[in-house]
């Protein structure tokens, strides 16, 4: 393919055009009807279907959380028996982790944005992408069946020997999650191949948006970790069905071995959950500081470092489980290491903001919230990684607060930021900025009300997953519950104005934020096939020091017809200057 780089002395005329504003025909109406949606191979529609699903499961998981918090208003039984309580927290955890957090950014936002940021027409395997979605749905159906046919109360971690010997629909649930794992693996596979093979000319690895570095690192984790969860759940199911005995001490097995296998996946899983969020943070902070990202390679490589080191630390979930002291010490040391690349990112983001031209739109507000809450979550993770401290804090509310700060205060805030950032691109509509900021504030306040007391409770000894508690903790629990309801209100407001935006929102221009990234150089919403011609990229996605006009796509006509036909156009991101 003839590119301007290969013939440096060739002058290319570029006729620039602005992307079509408020297009009549776009991906949402170019394929019509329910069947077209259900059988679509368009990554954008698949992304939206995932978005609706994860939003639904977030609602279900959130309602379960409110039920838990309401029960915990008093130490006595309020409206749930202890058995029901155990089922509710098991479901809250399993649904939030497997059905919301893990697919949320990669499958919902990632599917939509990844090909657009690469200048590609779709992901590498569009039909596999659709299959991933349906596998997710089938896994969800199995899990829902498990809930309604006996339920499970093992906790989302399914520890043996309880899970291998208790009644309830453990096998159905593990089967559902086993199936879901395939969805995660296939999405990761698709992303890796797309990023390797379908980059537009000019998108070298040093021009890859950091969002895609994040999705790439996440996909690597998905590929390597999820199969181990699959075999673990299969072994657990066989333990229940055939009584194999490798995890059951009554049969001479080792329950700690189950924990090793389980956490070998589940620790990297938390990085599957957060690393895409890190990618979004890089995009939004750079756009709304109008400044080139500080330390591009540091952020890019730190995603890979987190992915790798994240595989070495799983034993920090097992400090009190009975593993050898040698292993515990090694895991504790490695856990400290994994905080370093994350810390590098936080500093680089702050340095990006420094002396930038900060625009406090809603996505940026979510980023500020992210930086604050995730840092608290991250620090407390390191504290839990200290072996001697963890002996006291393991299985207390301190751990609960820690992971909610990183998962909710980190990941969900990043997800909301990304949702608000790319909303105009996905739907061609703007949302009400005033209510968006109000709800962000309400969520921030509600979140801290809910989880800050839990750090204190935990350090004073309140155990997690406990249905009742001693009187000294009641005030903390009540404050926490009120905070949960405040957060709920915030989310309801978000749903309301986003729905309003879809129905009656102001139309969005192609690039309302003035971003330099490639997805903003095409119309909002994009065409079904994303780009009419293959873009050729010359500038990086964070080059805010270059004027906006240099990022507009254009049609190039060259003087020699080498390599392309007369009528085939070539979009370039910049005029080629004549080289000596």
């Amino acid at each position, binding site marked *: 393919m003839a590119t301007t780089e290969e013939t440096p002395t060739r002058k290319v005329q570029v006729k620039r055009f602005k992307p079509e504003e408020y297009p009549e025909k776009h991906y949402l109406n170019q394929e019509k009807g329910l069947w077209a949606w259900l059988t679509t191979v368009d990554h954008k529609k698949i992304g939206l279907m995932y978005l609706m699903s994860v939003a639904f499961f977030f609602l279900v998981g959130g309602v379960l959380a409110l039920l838990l918090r309401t029960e915990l208003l008093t130490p006595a039984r309020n409206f749930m028996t202890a058995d029901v309580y155990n089922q509710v927290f098991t479901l809250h955890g399993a649904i939030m982790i497997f059905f919301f957090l893990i697919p949320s950014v990669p499958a919902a936002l990632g599917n939509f944005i990844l090909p657009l940021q690469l200048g590609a027409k779709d992901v*590498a395997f*569009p039909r596999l992408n659709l299959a991933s979605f349906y596998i997710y749905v089938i896994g969800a159906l199995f899990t829902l069946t498990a809930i309604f046919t006996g339920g499970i109360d093992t906790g989302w971690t399914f520890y043996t020997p309880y899970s291998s010997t208790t009644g309830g629909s453990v096998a159905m649930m593990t089967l559902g999650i086993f199936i879901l794992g395939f969805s995660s693996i296939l999405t990761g596979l698709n992303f*890796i191949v797309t990023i390797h093979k379908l980059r537009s000319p000019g998108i070298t690895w040093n021009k890859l948006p950091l969002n895609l570095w994040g999705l790439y690192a996440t996909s690597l984790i998905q590929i390597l970790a999820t199969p*181990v969860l699959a*075999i673990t759940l299969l072994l657990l199911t066989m333990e229940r069905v*055939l009584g*194999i005995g*490798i995890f059951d001490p009554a049969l*001479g097995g080792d329950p700690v071995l189950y924990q090793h*296998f389980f956490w070998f996946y589940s620790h990297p899983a938390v990085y599957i959950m957060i690393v895409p969020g890190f990618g979004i943070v890089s995009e939004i902070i750079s756009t709304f500081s109008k400044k080139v990202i500080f330390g591009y390679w540091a952020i890019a490589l730190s995603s890979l470092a987190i992915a790798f080191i994240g595989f070495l630390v799983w034993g920090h979930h097992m400090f009190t489980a009975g593993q050898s002291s040698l292993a515990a010490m090694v895991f504790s040391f490695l856990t400290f290491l994994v905080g370093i690349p994350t810390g590098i990112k936080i500093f680089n983001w702050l340095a990006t903001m420094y002396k930038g031209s900060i625009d406090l739109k809603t996505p940026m507000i979510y980023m500020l919230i992210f930086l604050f809450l995730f840092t608290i979550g991250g620090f407390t993770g390191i504290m839990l990684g200290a072996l001697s401290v963890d002996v006291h804090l393991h299985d207390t509310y301190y751990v609960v607060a820690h992971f909610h700060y990183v998962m909710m205060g980190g990941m969900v805030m990043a997800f909301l930021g990304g949702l608000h950032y790319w909303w105009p691109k996905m739907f061609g509509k703007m949302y009400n900025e005033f209510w968006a900021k109000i709800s962000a504030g309400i969520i921030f306040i509600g979140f801290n009300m809910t989880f800050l007391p839990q750090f204190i409770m935990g350090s004073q000894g309140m155990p997690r997953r406990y249905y009742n508690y001693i009187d000294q903790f009641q005030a903390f629990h009540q404050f926490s519950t009120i905070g949960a309801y405040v957060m709920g209100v915030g989310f309801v407001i978000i749903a309301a104005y986003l729905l309003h935006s879809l129905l009656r929102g102001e139309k969005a221009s192609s690039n309302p934020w003035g971003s330099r990234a490639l997805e903003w150089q095409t119309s909002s919403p994009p065409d079904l096939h994303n780009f009419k011609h293959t873009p050729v990229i010359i500038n990086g996605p964070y080059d805010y020091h270059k004027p906006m006009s240099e990022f507009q796509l254009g049609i190039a006509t060259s003087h020699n017809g080498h390599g392309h036909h007369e009528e085939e156009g070539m979009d370039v991101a910049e005029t080629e200057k004549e080289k000596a």
Partner: protein
Amino acid sequence: MSGTSATIEKRLDHLQHHFIDSDQQFESAKLGMWIFLATEILFFGGLFAAYIVYRSWYPELYIQASTELNTFWGAINTGVLIGSSLTVAMAIRSAQLNQIKGLIYNLYITIALAFVFMVIKYFEYAHKFHLGIYPGEYYTFEGIAHEKANIFFSIYYMMTGVHGLHVLIGIGLMIWLVYKAKKGAFHSGYYTPVEITGLYWHLVDIIWIFLFPLLYLID
């Protein structure tokens, strides 16, 4: 590349719109399959990990229990799978050379060898069931003087069972390939499904290459 325009069109009708050319599509499919094989390696890896942990704890159990496994038939099965890897490589070679008859012929032999593998496995399992060597809590065999004997066999059944399932899936895939080949879907410009099924099949062979000494040949 000469030919009528109908031939050229047919040679390109597999090309999907988001790929620039056939080559990019082929290389992408191969990369995708290699990534999937990585997940298979980690999947079986969990089983090998369980094997290793228990062998380190109960080495004498493994030595004793392994005598119940028939080394001769295990070795035959190893040869059968290696042979099937050879024939599937020959099948791909036939496709590359546009010898569709050779492709179908080699696929048939691969399928046959895979069936032989499964039949031998069936007889092995049947013999064990006859002796009361069942997985897990159904184990009733008295011949091994070790109270953890059932754990070795549970691991044996899990590893060979999951492997056998993968062989069955491979047979299914290759039957589908024969069907498509007979309909003329493959030619030297497009044989991607054959290539990636071949990659899958070779991995199934590699897994057995490790299973055989670890299960059957413990001293």
